[in-house]
C-alpha cells in the first residue's frame, strides 16, 4: 500500500517517467519489525527477497531492545494502525495480549496446518489464542546452562544430567567463578522466576483473563525465592543482566544461564569453541527451562494485499531453509523441533540434545494479557536481588502480581 502510494507520488508529476506507459507492477514492500533477538534478519530477508523474485520486498526495521518499551511501542503503533508494520517478530509472551486486543490477523486456515506441523506443544500453545493459530511459530529457545571448558568438571558437577541450583551455586562458589544469567531485554528476571516457580512444582500464574491467579505465595514461589536468595547470598553473580554474555566471556565467568542462541553471540567468539552445554539447573528434581521465543505475526489492520504478501513472507521465513539458517547460524531452537534431527542441522547446532529435551519439558510464560504488567510487578518486587527473602518476597510479590493481573493499582 505504502509502496504503491510512493510509486504513484514519484511518478505522477513526471508524465514521461519510464513506467508511465505500462502498468506499474505491484510490489508489496513488507516492513518487518524485528526485536533484539540474535536472528540475522537482514540475511533471512535477503534470501527470501531473492527467492520471491519480485513478488515482494522485505524491509527490516528494528524495535527497541527493552521489553516494556517494545511492548509499549508496538501496542501504540498497532492502536494507531501504523502502516509501517506489515510483519512483526512477536515475543511469544505478547501473543495473548495482542490477540485479545484484536491486533493480529488470524493465520489463513490453508497455512495454519502447515505451520503447526511438527511444532512442539509449548510453541504451538504460545502461538495460539482461543484454539486458533494467530502467530506463525518460529523459534522458542529453552534456556540452558553453558559453561566454559572444564569448569563444570572442576566444580565437580556431572553435566550429563541436569544439575541442581544448590550444587551449581556451591560449585561456582568453590571455584570462585560467576553464574551469569542472561537478560537481553529486561524480561530475564520474570522468566527466571517463572522457571524457578515451575521447577518448584508451582505455577506463576494459573487461569486466564481477569480470573488469573498469581501462584507466588506457594511452595513453588518460596522455593524460587530461596534459590534467588541462595544465589545472591553466595555472591556468585549479579543476577540477570544485559551484559551477562560479556561477563561470562571474561576472566571470572564460569557458567552462563542463557538460551541456546547465546553461543552465537559475537561477544563469545573467543570462548565459543570451548563452551559446553548442560540442561537447565533443577529446583527440585525436574529441569524446567524457561522458554522464550518469537513468532511471526501479521497485524490485523494491514490491507488484504499486504496481509497476503506478509503470509507469503511467513511461508518463506518458516521454510526449512530459513529455519535451518536460524538453527545453525544464530543457534535459535526452531519451533519445529524435528528439524534438529536433520543431519544438515545436527552438525551446526551446538546444543541439540539438551534443547530437544528442554523444549518439551520447559515452560513458557503464562498466557495472560497482562503479562507485560506482571513483568513490571516482578521487577518491582524481586529487585534488588539482595532484598529477596523466601519469607517476604513471595508474599509481597504475590500481591503485586495479582494486582497486575487484576488491573488494579500495585
Amino acid at each position: 500500500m505504502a509502496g504503491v502510494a510512493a510509486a504513484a507520488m514519484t511518478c505522477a508529476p513526471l508524465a514521461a517517467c519510464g513506467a508511465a506507459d505500462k502498468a506499474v507492477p505491484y510490489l508489496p514492500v513488507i516492513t518487518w519489525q524485528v526485536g533484539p533477538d540474535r536472528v540475522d534478519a537482514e540475511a533471512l530477508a535477503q534470501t527470501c527477497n531473492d527467492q520471491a523474485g519480485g513478488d515482494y520486498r522485505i524491509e527490516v526495521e528494528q524495535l527497541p531492545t527493552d521489553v516494556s518499551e517494545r511492548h509499549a511501542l508496538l501496542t501504540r503503533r498497532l492502536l494507531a494502525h501504523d502502516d509501517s508494520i506489515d510483519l512483526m517478530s512477536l515475543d511469544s509472551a505478547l501473543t495473548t495480549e495482542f490477540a485479545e486486543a484484536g491486533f493480529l490477523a488470524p493465520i489463513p486456515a490453508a497455512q495454519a496446518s502447515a505451520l503447526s506441523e511438527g511444532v512442539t506443544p509449548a510453541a504451538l500453545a504460545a502461538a495460539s489464542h482461543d484454539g486458533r493459530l494467530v502467530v506463525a511459530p518460529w523459534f522458542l529457545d529453552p534456556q540452558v546452562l553453558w559453561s566454559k571448558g572444564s569448569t563444570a568438571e572442576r566444580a565437580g558437577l556431572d553435566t550429563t544430567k541436569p544439575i541442581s541450583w544448590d550444587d551449581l551455586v556451591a560449585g561456582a562458589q568453590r571455584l570462585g567463578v560467576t553464574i551469569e544469567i542472561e537478560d537481553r531485554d529486561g524480561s530475564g528476571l520474570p522468566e527466571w522466576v517463572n522457571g524457578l516457580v515451575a521447577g518448584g512444582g508451582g505455577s506463576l500464574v494459573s487461569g486466564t483473563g481477569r480470573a488469573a491467579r498469581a501462584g507466588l505465595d506457594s511452595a513453588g514461589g518460596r522455593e524460587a525465592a530461596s534459590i534467588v536468595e541462595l544465589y545472591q547470598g553466595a555472591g556468585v553473580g549479579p543476577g540477570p543482566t544485559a551484559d551477562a554474555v560479556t561477563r561470562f566471556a571474561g576472566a571470572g565467568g564460569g557458567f552462563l544461564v542463557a538460551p541456546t542462541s547465546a553461543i552465537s553471540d559475537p561477544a563469545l567468539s573467543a570462548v565459543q569453541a570451548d563452551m559446553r552445554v548442560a540442561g537447565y539447573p533443577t529446583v527440585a528434581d525436574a529441569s524446567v527451562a524457561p522458554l522464550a521465543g518469537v513468532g511471526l505475526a501479521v497485524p490485523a489492520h494491514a490491507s488484504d494485499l499486504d496481509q497476503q504478501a506478509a503470509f507469503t513472507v511467513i511461508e518463506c521465513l518458516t521454510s526449512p531453509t530459513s529455519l535451518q539458517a536460524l538453527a545453525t547460524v544464530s543457534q535459535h531452537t526452531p519451533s519445529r523441533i524435528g528439524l534438529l534431527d536433520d543431519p544438515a542441522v545436527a552438525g551446526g547446532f551446538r546444543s541439540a540434545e539438551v534443547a530437544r529435551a528442554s523444549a518439551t519439558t520447559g515452560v513458557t510464560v503464562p498466557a495472560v494479557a497482562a503479562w507485560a504488567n506482571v513483568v513490571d510487578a516482578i521487577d518491582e518486587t524481586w529487585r534488588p536481588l539482595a532484598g529477596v527473602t523466601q519469607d517476604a518476597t513471595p508474599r509481597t510479590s504475590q500481591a503485586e502480581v495479582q494486582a497486575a493481573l487484576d488491573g488494579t493499582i500495585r
Partner: protein
Amino acid sequence: MTPSVRSRLWASATSFALGFGVGNYGVLQVPRPDQWVWIAVAVVLMLTGAAGVLFADTSRAVSFWAILGVEVFAVFTLVPLLWTFTVATTPEGATARTLLPQDISWSAFDGAISSGTLRSAATTSLLVALVATVVAVALAVPAAYALVRLQVRARRLVYGLVVAALLMPVLALAGPFADQLVSLGAYGSRLALVVPMLVVTLPLATWLCVTVMRDVPWTLLDAVRADGATRPQQLRRFAVPHLGPGVVAAALLVFVAACNDFALGAGLAPDRPSLPLPATLLVASRQVDGSSAVAAAGLLWLLIPLIVLLVLPRRINHLLGRSYR
C-alpha cells in the same frame, strides 16, 4: 560613613567572602578543567567586592547588592545551559564528565538536523502548535474583548473556568483523550492532536489576551468612533496599532507553549508520524548517545523561544509579568 557607603561595603564584603569561598572550594574539591569555572566565578565575585570598596564613597547611583545578585543570577542561569551544551557536544560513545566541554563534536547537532525522525517530530510539533494556536487566538480575542469590555453575566465564572483549565494537570486528560481517539480510529494522526492541544492553547490565549485587552487605551476607541471612523477605519486606526502587537506577542507565547507540550503529545501519539518533538526526545533519551542527541535537539529547539524573546523582549516580559499577577 553614610548609609549608602555602609551598604556598599557590606555588599563588597559579602561578595568578597562568597568569592573566597567559591574559589577555595573550587581549588580544593573540583578537578580540572572545571576548576577554572570556579576560579573565574570567584575572581568575578572578588573583583566585584574590590570595585565595591573602591566605589563605595562616590555618588554614583549604583547598588552593589544588585550587581552581586545579577552575577549570581547569571551563574545560576548559565551553568546548566553550558552543561546542556557540553552534553550536546560530547563525542559519540563518550560521556560528558566535566562542565566545560573537553572535545567539541558537532555530530549530535548534525544528527538532530538530519535525523528524519526528529525532523518529522519537529514538523508535527510546529504544525499542531500552529493550527492549535491560530484556532485558540481566533477564539480568544473576541472572548477576551467580551470579558474586559462588555457586560457579561457570569464573567467571574467564565474567568474561573479559563484559569482552572490553565492550571489543570493536562496529563489527567491524556488518558481519556487517547481512549476517545482509539475508539474513533483517529489515534495516531497528526490532526487528531489539534483538538486536545486546544486544552493547552485556548485558556492560555484567553488569559494572555485579557491582559492585552486591559492595557488597551479604550477611550481612544471612543474618540476614534466619535470622530466618525467607519468600521474598517476603526480596525486600521485603532485595533491594528493598539491590539495587534499585544495579540501577536500573546500568540507567540501560546505557540511556544503548545510546541513545548509534553504530556498530550506523548500520550496521544504512537511514535510516528504524529509524535511531537518533546515526546520523541523522551524516546531518544533512552538510546545510545541519547543524551547528546536530546541536548542538541533541545538547544536547537531553544532557538524558537530565543528568537521570540529577542524580537519582543520587553513585551513578552511585560505580558508574562502582568498576566500572572
